[in-house]
């Protein structure tokens, strides 16, 4: 049973990886970016757990900056993905422009909150 489970998991990973290889490289870049942002946020949370939340606004702005930009990147990925028929008519350049604008507004607020 246990063997079959590990085998199944291996098979699952395998199929996942082979499926992922087919993903266009632009989407892979976005995935990488989301991963980068989420890891940065995790490191800040760990730091907060270690030393306490004293400049709480700074902590919040740091984490929200990462989480916010990750969410925006996910939105960008949804819009850019050609599989999504919903955004078929939307050119990826327009989606990127939205991504840049939203990031700039987000970081204006973040900087204001940073203290």
């Amino acid at each position: 049973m246990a063997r079959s489970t590990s085998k199944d998991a291996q098979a699952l990973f395998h199929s996942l990886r082979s499926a992922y290889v087919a993903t266009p490289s632009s989407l892979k870049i976005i995935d990488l970016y989301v991963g980068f942002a989420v890891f940065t946020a995790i490191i800040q949370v760990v730091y907060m757990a270690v030393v306490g939340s004293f400049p709480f606004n700074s902590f919040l702005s740091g984490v929200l900056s990462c989480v916010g930009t990750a969410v925006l990147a996910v939105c960008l990925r949804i819009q850019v993905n050609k599989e999504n028929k919903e955004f078929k008519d939307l050119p990826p350049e327009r989606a990127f422009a939205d991504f840049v604008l939203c990031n700039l507004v987000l970081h204006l607020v973040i900087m204001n909150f940073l203290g």
Partner: protein
Amino acid sequence: MTRSHAVFLVLILAISICEAASIFQPISDSYRSAALDLFKPVDGSFASLEETYEALRTFEILGINKKPDVSTATCGTVAKALGSLSSTPKDLFDALRVNSILKCKINAEVFEGIISRLQAAVSGASSLLDFYYSIGSLGLIKDQTSKADLYLSDAEGIFRSIKALSQSDGRWRYSSNNPESSTFAAGIALEALARVVSLASSEVDQSMIGTVKNDILKLFDSIEKYDDGAFYFDEKVVNVPEHSGPLSTSSSVVRGLTAFTTVATGSLNLPGDKILGLAKFFLGIGIPGDAKDFFNQIDSLACLESNRVSIPLILSLPSTVVSLTKKENLMVKVNTVLGSKAPSLTVKLVRAYSTSSKDTSIIENKELSFDPERVVYFLDALPDSVDVGSYIFVFKVVLHDSEHKDVYVTGTLTHVQIFMTGLIKTGNAEIAVLDNDLGSIETQRKLDLAGENAVSLSANHLQKLRLSFQLTTPRGSAFKPHQAFLKLRHETKVEHVFLVRNSGKKFEITLDFLGLVEKLFYLSGKYDIQLTVGDAVMENSLLSDIGYVDLDLPEAPEKAPRPPPQAVDPYSRYGPKAEISHIFRAPEKRPPQELSLTFSGLILLPFIGFLIGLIRLGVNLKNFPTSSVPATFAILFHVGIAAVLLLYVLFWLKLDLFTTLKTLSFLGVFLMFVGHRILSHLASASSKLKSA
């Protein structure tokens, strides 16, 4: 302690007596020391020639011998002022005034030059001050040199042009185009007119002098009066430059009046009481703190002392407090204003009455004896009817020589408040504790109020305390002091003051403790007894600690009033307050720096991972536009984003929100423009690729 209190009381009373009496003292030695204090030369000379004259003239009048020597430095200044062609008539006038006292050596040719200039100035003068300074200078030159032939060329004409500036009320205008008339200017004009008369080659028309005398009389109609009999002149107009006070105005008039009456023949019918009133005004000022005021005061008094209308004589008393016990005599002095000897005269005591009963005179028409050695008039024996108390003495000065009556003015009657003091005898003083119901005496002690007492009594709330004493004056009659208090002071410093009332000679107070328990706050224990008897005319006012009484009072009921909190020590009230310590919020705990730096480094790890991932994915910039225009836009787009991020960093570090938003609006427009261009280019390129 008791004694020092009594002395202090007497001192305060003595001071208040001195202030109450308004008699005028002639100039004394205190003025001489004040003059030396006020007029102090700096580096051997005074600040200006005017100041120098004021100082030297004051020293001269007061007869100060130990005056500071300023002659060498000042003579140089005088010679310079007289020799300079640019000197104004005022400079010359001041220099000549100083020279009239110092008598510096000035060349005769210098005077010749000045005389011709001054003569021209006189004939060309239009304002009062021009006349005053140039004519005054000429007069001073005539006095200082032996030039008997120095005359004004057109004395009557000049006299008329000065007189033309006078007003119908006796005041003068400074110039013909200045409509405001001034009392100060009247004094100056009179002085100038006096100089004109003395510089005239022939006698000035008597009718013109008569009109000026008339002006003087009219000027004296506008004189103002204080309640104490002092008269003074004051300016009616407000915006007169510099000279405005009553002192300088009165002083100017007195100077002018004296100068004019000296040269004018015939008598001037001025009321003597106004002259005396002016003298009282100058004396009543006391010692002024200002050098100019001091000079005005002394110079005016000197003018009054030597004026030809009437010389005031001042009646003064060395002391207005006379001790009956010490058999002191009441002394009166009569002097001129500067304190010199008066002619032979008699001082009469017209009447004397007690301040409480004004109608009954105690002394009437008594002549004072003269002591030629001390130059005082004294009342040798006071009648027995004069007891301690305050009295008004009315004096009259009668001159012996009938010729003197025209020269001197003494005033009609002088009212002076005199305090007769004496030792008050205390007798029959005793303190007793009485039983309440029967009034029978339980304990009784004799007291000697003048000496030490240490009585110890004890009483309860059903008993009474009685204190009685008698006060008799040196003449044997009953004495009623201003203050007679009995004070009880508990150990806890709670005090109670009772007024001691009198019936005839006897003073008595009975404290019924039954009625007083509430007032005493039911406080049992030792009470110190203190008796205060004081009066202005009582030489032996007393504040005496008699002893103590041990009171046994009932327990305080529930609702009894509590004794008031004791007053804080008045000295500690003004002492330093306790220091205020401020409490600040403790700073939050910060993590160690190494830990923070480590995490800052850790933040870089995902970024490095991101870069490695990018390389692994084989990212390239092949899609970057190659043609020049889109490439420029692409670069500008990235630069724009970088600029906005840099602006955010600056906003975090130092900028405020408004500056940031302003800059951001420009950058945003720019970024939108370039972004739109490059992205639409990329979009068209990719669609072309698709369609192809």
